[in-house]
Structures are given as C-alpha cells and as structure tokens.
C-alpha cells in the first residue's frame, strides 16, 4: 500500500470531567449521565451504549442529581436550580429556582406525577409535573439539617430522606415525618464526624436501604423504624445505591472505586426466607464511584475517574456477544478536532476555548518505524476564548483554513482568519444572519464557500461565505419532519450534496443545487457514528455504532454493490467486537478506493478493491504481510488494513500531501491529572 508520514500530535490536552450522576429510563433504554461541569450525555443502551446526545455544560455548573420523568429529564444542582432539558434540541429548556438553597437530590415518583427535591435548608419540596413545566406544590415538614438523598416508595405515599446522622420517613399526604431512624456514626476517628447518609432506596416491601459515609449499607424496616441488618462494605464512604427494577439486586458504589452487589437471596437453597446478601465486588474504577445504576443485566457506574463503565452481570446473559463484554467509555463519541486539510491546520475544541495549531514539517524520508527529524515545530496559531459561561457545543474550521466557526447553546460565532508569514489575524464576522443563533453541528463546504449549520428540528441553514461576511441562503428541512437534533453533517467535494444524520437514526441527503431534500437513507437500527461523502463517486459512506459499514450511492439512491457485498459477506468478528465507535471517516484523494477511518484504539484503511476478510482469516495481518515476500502479499491481503501503533486516538485524518495526522491522548496523561484517590493500604507499601 505504501508508506505514510504520520504527524503524531499529543498536545491536545483533552480532559474529561468526572461523572456525578446517572439516571436510567427503562422504556427507551436511555442512560443519562451528568458530569461535574454540567454536561449531560445520553447513552443508548440498546445501541451499544452509543452516546447519542450531548448537552454542553457551563462554567460553574454544579449538577448534583438527575431524574427522568417519563421522557423528560430533570437535573438539580448546588446552585439551587432545577433544570429541565430539551432533549430534542440538546439544550436546557428552562430552569426554575427551588428557593431552598443548594439542592442535593432530585427524584421522581413512579407514577410520574411529582418531583421531590432535597434542599440544603432541610426541606423536601414537592413539585407537580405538568405538560410543559413543573410547578411547586408544597414543602414537607422542615427538618434540621440538610437533605442529602431522597427516595420515593413505589406507591408514592411515602418518601424517605437521608440526612446527616438521621433518616426521616415522610408521609407525602400529610407532609409530616412519620419515622425517624438514627444512623450511628462509625467507630474510631470517624466518631466525631457526622455520618452522612449519601443514598437511600425505598423498596416496595417497606425496607429502606441506606448507604452512609461510615462505609455501611444498612437495611431498615420502615414500619417499626428499626435496623434489620448492617453491612460494613468499605472503610470509606458508600456514595451511591441503586436497586434493580424487580428489587432483587442492589448495586453499591463506594469511595474506594469498588462497586458491590447485594442480592436478595435465601441463605439456604429452597427456603423461603430471603435476605440481602453481599455477592459480588467489581473493581473497575480507580477513584470514587459517585453514581451506579442497576439495569437488570448490567451494572453501570461512573465516578471521579471520568470513566463510564458498564459491567454486565454474566448470570443474566445467555450468550457471548456485545452485551456480555465489559465496556469502558472514556472518550466522547464525536469529534472534538477539526482539520483544515489544505492548510494543514488543526482546531481543538475545549469546553471553554478553541485552539488552532499548525502542523510541523519534517525533512526527508525515512524507513518504516523511523522518526523523522522535525524541521519546523508545530505552533499554536490561535487561542480563542469564548465569552459567556456556556461551553462550546460544536466548532469547525474551513478546509482552506480561512474560517473558524463555533457555537454554544446560546450563541453562534464566525471568524475570518488570515495567516501570512507567521502573522495571524482573526476578525470576527459581526453581522450574522439571525437564524444562526445556535447550532448543533457546523460544516464548511469543501471550497469554503458555503457554511452549513444544523439547527433545531433537524433543519440545516445554508449560508454563503465571502469576503464581506456571511449571507443566509435558505433552510433545508427534512421531509419526515423529525424534531431531533442533527449529530453529523457531511458535504460532498463537488459541493452538490449535503448529508445530515440525526439521533433518530435518520440520514437525509439534500441536493444543494436545488436546495431541496434529495433522498433518505433507509433507517438502520443503529445510529451513525461517522459519515463522509466520497469525493469522486459521491457515495455516502457511513459507519454505525454497531460497527456496521454501509455505503449509499447518492446519485443512484441505493446502496452500492460493495455495501451489499459487505452485508452479505458479513464483517469479521474482530471488527465487530471492537467496543469503541468510529468517529471519523475520510478519503484518500490520490486513491479513490481507500477509506480511512479510526476509533479509539486503531486506525484502518479500507481498500475496496481487495477481497473482504473471511471469518477464519487473520484479521490483523499487517505484521504477517510485512514478513512475506512481495509476491506472496497479494494473495494474503484483505480489504482491512489495521494499524494499532497509535493508541487512544481522538482524531485521524489524511492530509492533502498524503501524510496522516494522528491526534493521540494517552489515558495515562488523563489519569495523571486526576485528583488523588482515597489512600489505600497495599501490601509492602
């Protein structure tokens, strides 16, 4: 195939933020993740835990808890506000102040009628859930001390609140505290500290399970107000609890990074009397586990080490497959880097600023495996701080390197960039069309003449860029009238076609000459994680979250032969077993048969002229091919050329001069910047 010069870039200091809360919506199988910087991400459990939506956070956000009410998502934080999210458009719908001081916990009842929030001032406030808003109903009896955690009884008649050193059970009708459970503090030094009941769960049989800062999981009988059993799970705090739907399994997250499972079993086989027994311990995290979810066949956990871990419970899974593998999601499932291919520039998107870098140059060529001397180092051309508190939602740089655009939920900005002889000047385009208020996705046309902005209800605004500025042309709306936000935009090389993919798994293709929708790609069960339009054949190449590859001919409005062949032949099991999605697809201008794509651990060049690999053939065969003589190679090579040299990839792109740009972010560098975990005594240390 050939040699490639690879620019190995490691100066993108991407730093994810810690996970603070998780919430599961069983009907749609969605998991909502709240991070400490206010970002809310929605993962689709049915679709290989693909990150479907990202609602960007803001500065000084302090989300503490999440709650689903039907399809609606609410969060509450230490700024005392309850936020409802607009999941169609990936932004907050509204915020409402609870007037109770910092809010520690929010929970909805099973019937979906009310929301309860636990506040700093000791009140549990009940909000009625209406169609389009929530309304404050009343306070339950005010207590001394802050309400840390809440849980509704499945019948909705009682709420249990975990506070400092004490647990109260409230009757929701009367609002009074009917039962008071005293939690004893830990032994030894922790005797002087208050015991914080971090999490409570109210089971339908009246059992209350609480996890506190003394490291104990306690089972209480709410009727008599007595302690049934106390389990010392850890030396450190028990931070979070989650009980499964059928109330037979409990997941406990601790400050040590362990997730412990309790199951409601009978001690002697066959007997009727059951009790909660500690069964398994999972040690998948290095830092505090701040949120767990027991979602029947798996335990999902997240915490301060920023990883989102899905641990399948193998006794519930029958066959080995995607569902039975341990998943560890560390990187976002979307691009944070855009590249100006012609100009050799990289744009890094940080939450609060953008950085533009020019790649360096090397001299001479070298043998495989050699490191070339860097003639000119990469330089940072631009550090663009955004105004306002919101985080950047999306950003893009035009292929020629002359335009930079970014958007937050509240604003949209476009800049003109001039780079001449080491002078960089940037001019903000002030007069922007009014429709361009915010964007879910931004895309420049290949000749940098047009700007495509994905907006609400899957519509795309088209604007023309020229010397004077930006002029709005028209809005492209999909035929189906879907309300979901667009995740991906792809423009064709000749400027004729535009493809958009939204979180409803709909892929629309628009004809830019006529400014009308051209066709809709048949809906695939899995969402699109990366797509691009081929420069010469105008085939739309899509990679899905379940690792399937499809190629759709835009002009012919049907799948290409190659795509059908791939579907018939089936992809190699090693390809399908990969657990990180492909986040970028690009093509080789010099060789139309090549497709370059990458995921977190590999990048791959697919050669459409070569045969597809058999199930039994060696998939990762680069080393084997290297060791063979030239004549032999042709017989043994297949279409997928995998390279696993570079790890923890955020972005891979093929530049105009046939050199590859590889943006790596080693996980070690991320973990090195995390705060210290709890001190654990290990042998011989």
């Amino acid at each position: 195939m050939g040699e490639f010069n690879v620019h190995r870039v490691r100066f993108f200091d991407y730093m994810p933020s810690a996970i603070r809360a998780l919430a599961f919506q069983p009907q749609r199988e969605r998991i909502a993740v709240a991070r400490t910087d206010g970002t809310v991400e929605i993962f689709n459990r049915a679709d290989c835990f693909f990150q479907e939506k990202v609602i960007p956070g803001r500065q000084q956000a302090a989300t503490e808890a999440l709650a689903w009410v039907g399809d609606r998502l609410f969060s509450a934080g230490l700024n005392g506000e309850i936020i409802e999210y607009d999941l169609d458009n990936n932004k907050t719908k509204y915020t409402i102040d609870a007037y109770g001081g910092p809010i520690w916990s929010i929970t909805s009842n099973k019937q979906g009628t009310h929301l309860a929030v636990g506040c700093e001032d000791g009140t549990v406030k009940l909000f009625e859930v209406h169609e389009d808003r929530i309304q404050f109903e009343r306070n339950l009896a005010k207590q001394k001390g802050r309400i840390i955690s809440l849980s509704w009884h499945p019948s909705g008649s009682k709420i249990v609140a975990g506070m400092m050193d004490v647990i109260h059970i409230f009757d929701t009708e009367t609002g009074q505290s009917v039962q008071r459970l005293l939690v004893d503090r830990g032994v030894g030094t922790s005797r002087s500290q208050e015991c914080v009941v971090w999490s409570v769960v109210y089971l339908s049989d009246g059992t209350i399970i609480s996890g506190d800062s003394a490291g104990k999981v306690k089972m209480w009988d709410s009727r008599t107000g007595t302690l049934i059993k106390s389990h010392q799970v850890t030396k450190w705090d028990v931070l979070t609890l989650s009980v499964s739907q059928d109330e037979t399994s409990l997941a406990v997250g601790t400050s040590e990074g362990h997730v412990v499972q309790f199951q409601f079993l009978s001690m002697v086989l066959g007997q009727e009397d059951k009790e909660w027994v500690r069964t398994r311990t999972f040690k998948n995290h290095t830092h505090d586990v701040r949120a767990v979810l027991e979602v029947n066949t798996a335990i999902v956990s997240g915490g301060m080490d920023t990883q989102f871990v899905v641990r399948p419970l193998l006794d519930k899974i029958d066959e080995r497959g995607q569902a039975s593998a341990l998943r560890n999601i560390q990187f976002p499932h979307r691009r944070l880097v855009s590249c100006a291919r012609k100009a050799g520039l990289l744009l890094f998107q940080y939450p609060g600023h953008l950085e533009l870098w020019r790649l360096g140059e090397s001299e001479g060529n070298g043998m495989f495996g050699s490191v070339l001397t860097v003639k000119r180092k990469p330089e940072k051309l631009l550090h663009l701080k955004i105004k306002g508190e919101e985080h950047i939602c999306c950003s893009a740089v035009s292929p020629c390197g002359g335009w930079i655009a970014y958007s937050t939920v509240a604003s949209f900005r476009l800049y003109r960039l001039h780079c001449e002889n080491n002078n960089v000047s940037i001019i903000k385009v002030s007069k922007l069309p009014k429709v361009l208020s915010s964007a879910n996705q931004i895309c420049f046309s290949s000749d940098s003449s047009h700007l495509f902005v994905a907006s609400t209800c899957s519509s795309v605004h088209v604007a023309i860029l020229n010397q004077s500025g930006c002029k709005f042309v028209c809005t492209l709306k999909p035929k189906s009238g879907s309300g979901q936000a667009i995740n991906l935009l792809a423009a064709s090389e000749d400027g004729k076609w535009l493809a958009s993919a939204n979180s409803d798994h709909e892929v629309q293709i628009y004809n830019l000459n006529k400014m009308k929708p051209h066709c809709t790609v048949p809906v695939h069960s899995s969402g699109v994680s990366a797509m691009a339009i081929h420069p010469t054949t105008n085939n739309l190449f899509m990679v899905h979250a379940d690792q399937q590859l499809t190629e759709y001919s835009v002009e012919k409005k049907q799948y290409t032969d190659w795509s059908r062949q791939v579907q018939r032949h089936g992809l190699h099991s090693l390809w399908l077993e990969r657990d990180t999605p492909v986040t970028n697809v690009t093509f080789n201008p010099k060789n139309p048969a090549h497709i370059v794509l990458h995921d977190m651990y590999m990048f791959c060049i697919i050669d459409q002229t070569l045969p597809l690999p058999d199930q039994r053939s060696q998939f990762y065969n680069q080393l084997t091919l290297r060791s063979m003589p030239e004549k032999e190679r042709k017989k043994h090579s297949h279409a997928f050329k995998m390279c696993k040299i570079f790890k923890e990839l955020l972005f891979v792109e093929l530049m105009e001069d046939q050199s590859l740009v590889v943006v790596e972010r080693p996980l070690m560098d991320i973990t090195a910047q995390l705060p210290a975990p709890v001190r654990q005594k290990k042998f011989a240390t």
Partner: protein
Amino acid sequence: MAALYESYTLCALADTGPEGTRAIEPDRDRDRVVITESGRAVTVYKVSDQKPLGSWTVKQGQCITSPAVYNPPTKEYVVVTDEKVVRVWKDEDISIEKAFKATVSAEVYRLHSVPDREPLVLFRHGAVRFLDSLLAAPQQTIEEVLSEEEVIRWSAAVQMEQQLVLLFSTEQRGQHCLYVQRFSPNALVKHRLETDSTNSTPLSYAATYRDGNIHLLYLFSSGSVYESVLQARPTVPAVSGTVQALPRSLLLKLPVGEGELTAASALPVDESHIAVVGVPHPLAGAGKDYLCLWNTHFQTLQAARELAGKIYGQLWCFSGKLFVPHGKILSVIPFECQKSSLAAAMGKLKQTSGTNESSGPTLVPTWNALLHSNQTQTQENSRGAGTKKSKMSTRNQSSCPTAEQLAEKIKVGSEKEVQKQVEEFLHGSQPEELQLTAGRLASALVMRCQADPTFYPQAAFTQLVQTNYLCHSGCPDLLVLTLEKNDFRLCQLCLQLFQDIPEAVTCCCLKTILSFQDSELEQVDLEDGLLFMKALTQTAEVSDDGDSGQHNGFCPPVLEEEICDAPPDSEAPGTRPAREPLALDMSCPVGLHKGALLNEVLQVPYSDSLLLPHLKDLNVPQVLLFLQYLRFLYLKYSQDAHSRIPALRKPTVTQIMDWVCLLLDAHFTVLALTPEAKSLLTSLHKFVRSQVKLYSELGKIEGSLEALKKSKQSREIGQYSIEVIELF
C-alpha cells in the same frame, strides 16, 4: 521423656519427733499403702481415694521403732515397738494392744517386706532372720555381725528372680560400708563404699533389680549420684581380710550450688530416670524445694515440681506414683517415664515394632481411589463383552497377584515365568499401588539374583525401572548388580532415573564404564544418548576449517605473548600451525557408546565432598581418558554445538566443569607427576584461560552493552513527532 502429673494430698503429717519414724510400705495391692507416722500411728490408706482404711496407734509411752510392714502370706501387719517388741495384727483387729506380740532378745533395726514371703527382720547388729523363724522362737540368740561402732544407716531387701538379697549400709567413723546378705546359702559380703573427694556423706540409697543385677544408686551430699552394680551371684568368693571397695560409676552430678545437701533423696524410677527431692532446681536456685525427674542417659532434667514446705528428704515410689512428704502434707505425684532414647530426645519416637517387615505395604485410601475406583468399576461393568483387551484386563485384574504373592513367586519361579508375571502385575496394577510395590519387587528380584547368579530377568528389571517409581534407596543393590552383569542399558536407565545414587556407587559405575573397551560397548542400545553423541561428533567433522573458532573478530593472542613455561603442543608438523594454540576441533577420544554412558554419569546428582574420596579410586589411565573426554565435551560446548542438537538429556557446561575440577582435585598429585597428562592439562589450561579472558573482556563492556540495550527500548515520544509507517 518424663512427666509429672497433678499431685494430690494423701494425708496430713504430724510432727515427727527425733525418735519417731515415718515410712511408707506397700500393702496388699497396688492401691494401698501402710504409713507409719510419727512413731505412734500406723494407717492404711487407699491411695486413689485418699482415704484411710484403717488406723492403729500404740499406747502412750510406747514408740514404734520400725515401720509397719505387710505380711502377704498371712495377711497381717507387723511392727516393732520399743526396738524389741514385735506386734502382729490383722486388719480386723481394732487395737494393736490386743494383738499378738512377742519380745525378742536383740534390738531390731527394721523389718522388710518381701513379696510373697514373710518379712525379713534386720537386727541392729547386723543379724538377719525371717519373721516366722524368729517368732517361732522369739528369744533365740541373735549373733552380732557388725562391730561396736558400726551403725546401720539404710537397708533394703531386693527380690531377684530366684534369690532374695538384703542390703544394708553402715557407717563407722566416717567410713561407709555396704553389706550384702544372701540367703540359701547364707552369705554376707562386705564392701567398702568410697567417699567422694569432698568429704561428703551419702544421703540416700536405693536398690533396684534390673537385668539380672542389682543396681544400687546412692546420692552424696555433694550432689553426685553414683551407681554400683552387684551381680546376682558373686563369682569370686569373698576374700577374707581385705574389704573390697565397691566399684561404682558416676551417674549424674546434680547441681547443688553453694553448700551441700542436707536432706535429699534420689530414687530410680526406671532404667534411665531418677526422681530427686531436696536438690535445688538448677534454674530456681536454693530456697525453693523441688521434686525433679532427671534423665540419667542424657543428663537432662525432664520434669520438676515445686514442693511447698520443708523437705524431709524422704521419697518413695510405688506403682507409678511418687510419695513425698513436705511441709505438713504427704503428696502423691503420679508420673510417667517414657523409654529414654535419642530418637525420643530428638523428637522422633523409635519404632517399637521394627522387626516385622514381612507384612506388605498398606495402602492409604486416597480420594482418587475412592472416587475413581467406583468410576472404573462402573465403566468396566458397562463395557460388557467389549473388546478382547478389556476381557484380558478384567481377567488379569481378577487373577492379578498381589505384591506379596508375586514376591513369593519370584523366589522360586523360572526367569521366563517371573518376567511374565512381573509384566502382568505392572500392567494390571494401579499407580498408587505401584509406587509402594515396585521397590519391593525389585528388591526381591535383586535378592534372588544375588543368590542365584544364573537368574537375571533383564526385561523385568527394565520395566520396573521404567515405571519411574524406583530409586536407589528402594533397592540398593540393583545398580551394582547391573554393573556386575555388564548390563549397560539398564545401568544407563538407572543413572537417568535414580535420583539418590550414593557417590560411591556413582564412582563405581564410572570406573566400570571407563575400564571397558569401546568395542565391548558397541552392542549396547543406548537410544537418544547415542543420538546426541553422534550429532556432537558429526559437527566436529563438518566445521573443519581453522577459523571456525573465531567469531566476531575475536583474535586469540599470539603464542609468543603468552606466558607459559610448557612448550607448545608438540603436534605432528603439517596438521596445525603453531599460530593457533586453541585447536578448537577435536575428535572424540572415546567411542560413542562410552561417551553416551559417560554423559549419563555426568548428569547424576552428587555432592562434592562425598564424591571426592571415591574419585580417588580411579586409576591413572582412566582419569586421563575421562579428562580427555571432558575436554572434548567442553570444546564442543564452547562452540555451541550442543544447543543445536535436540536431545532430552545432555550434560550442561557447569556439570562438565565441575567434574573436571573434581577430577583434578582428586588426582592432583598423580596428574602432576604423570608425563602423559602434561599435554592434556596444558591444552585444557590454555583453553580455559582464553575463555576467562573473553568473559572478562565482555564484563568490561557490560556497562555499555546494557546502555545500548536500554536506549533501544525506550523511545521518548514527546508532544509531537513525525514517524513513518508502512501499510501493506
């Protein structure tokens, strides 16, 4: 090992005045004792219940002068009061006064009870009478045997198998003597007791009958315990006039600290243990009184018990219990003494039954056997008619002889028969059984071979050895037998598989192998050892050019620069120029078969110090041959020839070098004097020296090599780098 158990009080003691006696005598059975107390009361106690069964006192003014004894034939108690009045009473009598009494004409020193006979009466002046004969005529004249100033200090009656002996010791002006009175015929022998050097007096005596002799144990106030042995019958008639000194041996020197013992007593409890009271505990020091049990064989203190109160220096031992009066009570302390042996002292008890080897090895049931034997049984049951093999195996199982039966058959059967049966047995038995029985069978076979020189079932031996369950200590003579019969195949197998061959046997094998001619060994089938040798010698022929030994530009130093006092190898001109002193190819000095066998010997485990003396048994030509062979091997190994040869077992370089060193050590002087050895040794020396030089040079550059290695491994990538990759 000995142990003292919990003590209990038998009775309280009354104060004994100077004229009162206190003694304990055995009663009619093991559990009853007669205690004479304070010169006034006689009480019979049941020891286990600590209960007095009967008590008799004498009137005021009268005093018991000899402890009461029990008369077994008449079931009566006898006591002497006021030295001359003998009283006899029965159990039923309530008062002594009403019982029979008789006055004798001389003062009685003491009564002694004799098992199954009437008691002996010892008079103050040394005469002895039996009670019956005395009471028949109480007023009979009693002769005076001892001199005026002799005072009896101690007496005891010892019942030997047929004879009765009465011993008593006397003191006269500091001189102690021992009298031995034998009966039928009556004979009195006097012996002189030697005193200790430090003017100490004997404090206590004890006499026991053991192994046909009387052992007399006496404790001196200096703490020494002596033992004298008196024969049952004196061989030499007593020579009148001179009094023989009693030969004695020092048994134990008890540590007494400062001063001397005042009231102490030592009592033998069994043949190697003595109980001592009144001697201070070696650790506790003076001031506290202890009852100690000493082991006289090993001079160790086995057990000690502290006794509260004053020690009277009296100690009795009856039926496994020690009776000690101390303070105000009489304590009974049961004890137990195990047979004293070094094994017991070291922690391993001697096997009590060592003689019956005939009972075969017992199988310890294992889980495997319990679980899987059911399985195999059911499997075989379900197999039904099955194959011919299974039929045979079931048949064999039923007819399979046990190891015992086989061992018997080995003794008598013919060679063919025995081989067949051994084969059957091996085929049919379980591995766990085989572990135990293989050694047994092999020893049986070896014994038969030794007895009958024509009998040699080689196949049976080979099969037994190949089970891998034999070792040298299992059948010690097997290896030597193979050498005798010149069965080198079996010898090779044994050398390979036995892990515990003594060095003497190894050297024996070595000697035998070396002494055989190559031609004689040709017929032996040595399998892979031979393959290794063949491959090793073949490489010698292939790489024939002289530069094969020089790799990586290593240039051996020129001969002129070398400092050696021996002239260079005088080789035939034209074979090798003198420029190359390290002739690295060499032909094998021994035949291939011998070489294979020698390789086996090289791999036998040994320890240096034990091998060295046996190596000296080799004679000079053998040593030279072996050294040549070792040198050949070493040269081959330094060319790395051996690493290319796939063989299961080959000697390692360290083994070869160790053997060279050992050989040289063992035959140092011989080799130094033998002229033939000179060239061999100089060439070996040169080669080794060149190797040492190579390694030292390598060591010098070791640091830079390490740095090179490290630099290749770690590549700092840094924030940005441009690399070249190739995709195929």
